[in-house]
């Protein structure tokens, strides 16, 4: 297999306060290959957004402390200085966030915002950049793009604003897109349009995508590979079909059982309790207080991520080993 576009190794994000050190992301490792869409799922507090922010170098240090390795096309971004990072972010790595309205400058025309980003990264004449801005908006499916470049953000609906954000993201032909809950603020029919667009761009441009989401349905339809996080750690990682058909970790299984099923009958498999806070992490397996399969050793021994199937790893004492 070719080198991955993104390779994260032993990523740790900690926050230092008077009460001590709280570890919010704990030794997270994964890769994203060219044209691959990898899902990072978990509930709030799992550390998925912090992981994506750490990759982009967006965590304020101090109080934050980030260690490990984030290799983007071979270059370690964690060691890179702010100037080098600024050159990569927005050009080779695009990012889109949950609230598209809040990510656009309200007093600047859309076209200007697009060309400004491109002018920083591409050495091209203004009039050519303007043409490119129109091309990009057309590509992300904005009707009458040539006229809309003169509009302000408030003249765009939520779905259209998110398309503009994606357009801005892809205007410099990035090799990696980090999308953090990109459609949470959108309606289901508009969400479908935006996600279809991301799928298409990954397929056609070979863009690697890290999709952060709490929605298992979206992840199952969008991703090639899925990483499940719980309380700052990866608990399972597998190809999408394996993860949903043969989940190895009890948390993954429980999460899938929480979804209202196709038949709409019976009770949902709710998980008792809630995700632990940073200051009250359980010993051993962090999921054991909520796990219906927990054994005594789960409370004392921390399970390591290990191979449990072809291409499938899980951190659970009870998961069967592969071979």
């Amino acid at each position, binding site marked *: 297999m070719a080198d991955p576009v993104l390779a994260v190794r032993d990523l740790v994000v900690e926050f230092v306060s008077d009460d001590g050190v709280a570890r919010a992301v704990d030794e997270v490792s994964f890769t994203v290959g060219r044209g691959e869409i990898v899902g990072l799922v978990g509930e709030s507090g799992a550390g998925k957004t912090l992981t994506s922010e750490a990759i982009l170098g967006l965590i304020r240090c101090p109080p934050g402390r980030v260690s490990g390795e984030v290799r983007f096309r071979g270059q370690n971004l964690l060691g890179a200085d702010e100037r080098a990072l600024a050159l990569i972010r927005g050009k080779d790595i695009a990012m889109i966030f949950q609230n598209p309205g809040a990510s656009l400058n309200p007093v600047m025309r859309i076209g200007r915002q697009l060309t400004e980003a491109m002018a920083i990264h591409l050495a091209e004449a203004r009039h050519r950049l303007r043409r490119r801005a129109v091309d990009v908006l057309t590509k992300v499916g904005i009707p009458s793009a040539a006229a809309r470049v003169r509009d302000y953000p408030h003249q765009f609906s939520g779905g259209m604003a998110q398309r503009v954000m994606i357009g801005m993201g892809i205007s410099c032909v990035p090799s990696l897109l980090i999308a953090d809950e990109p459609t949470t603020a959108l309606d289901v029919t508009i969400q*479908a349009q935006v996600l279809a667009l991301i799928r298409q761009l990954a397929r056609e441009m070979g863009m690697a995508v890290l999709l952060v989401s709490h929605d298992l349905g979206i992840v199952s339809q969008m991703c090639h590979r899925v990483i499940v996080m719980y309380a700052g750690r990866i608990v399972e990682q597998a190809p999408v079909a394996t993860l949903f058909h043969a989940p190895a970790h009890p948390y993954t299984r429980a999460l899938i059982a929480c979804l209202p099923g196709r038949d709409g009958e019976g009770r*949902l498999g709710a998980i008792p309790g809630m995700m632990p806070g940073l200051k009250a992490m359980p010993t051993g397996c962090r999921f054991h207080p909520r796990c219906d399969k927990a054994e005594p050793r789960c409370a004392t021994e921390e399970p390591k991520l290990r191979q449990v199937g072809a291409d499938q790893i899980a951190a659970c004492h009870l998961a069967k080993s592969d071979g």
Partner: protein
Amino acid sequence: MPLLEVEDLAKHFPVRRGLFTRALGGPERVVRAVDGVSFAIEPGETLGLVGESGCGKTTTGRLVLRAIEPSRGRIVFDGEDVTALSASHLLPFRRKAQIVFQDPYTSLNPRMTVGKIVGEPMRVHQIAADAEVPARVRALLDTVGLRPEHAQRYPHELSGGQRQRVGIARALAVGPRLIVADEAVSALDVSVRAQILNLFVDLRDRLGLAYLFVSHDLGVIRFVSHRVAVMYLGALVEVAPAARVFERPLHPYTQALIASIPTVGDGRASIFDEPARLLQGELPSPIDLPRGCRFASRCPHRFDRCTETEPRLEAAEPGHAVACFLYDRGSGERLAGQTRATLNHEGGAS
């Protein structure tokens, strides 16, 4: 007799005009947030009201409770017309119809303890002597799965799921027969959402509650509802038993909505790789609605009549109402069959 019957309910909000337009004497414009909605809920029944943002589902929930005044229409609760009751006469109705809000973070008074929040409706409605209130609060907290010591806590000390349980306990405090649940699980994490949905279903079965369950989440709607009403731009476009809506939706909008839900699949095919199946375009503005069918501008099956007159919500099959000309009279049924065939074909081929 239905517990709640709503007839031709409407809410039109005037659009605030600037000084300039007013001076020029431009026409009065209104947002038709809810534009003539009729439905009924039987005792113990859950009607799911589903639609995208801005379709008027939340406004409908508020109208039903007389939290806002309707522009037109009639609300009959338990055989009594409550549409025109004055504020003082509404109190008995308020005891029977309650609401649970979406956001458990902002719908609870941060300065009151849980015990006070849950006990207050009992005092307001004078349904328990002051001395009895603490015992009743404890019983209610137990009903919604909270411990007695939670009565002394403040909302900020609770998790989102616990807060939503407090919101439910508060609604139950006056012994209602109908609860309007307005996106009541939308702000919660998956595992907590499942806990609260189970609680809603348990309470319904134990207390014989009826719900108007308002949500944009089709998975949630399918799980809790006996019947489902689909709303688009202020009007109901389809009303049918839940299983029918999901297995054999008739209205092109419902069909598109269901096709857009990312359900957990086998990981081999993706609904997002078939843009032809997904709905194009966006919700038009509810100001100055176009003539004809509200959905016509986005409908893949539009024909001339759709842009001329508005289809009424009528039974296409027993218990299954739809507002669409494809199902008009006998010829409509045939046309509808074709449409479904076309849709399935497109879905499979592309």
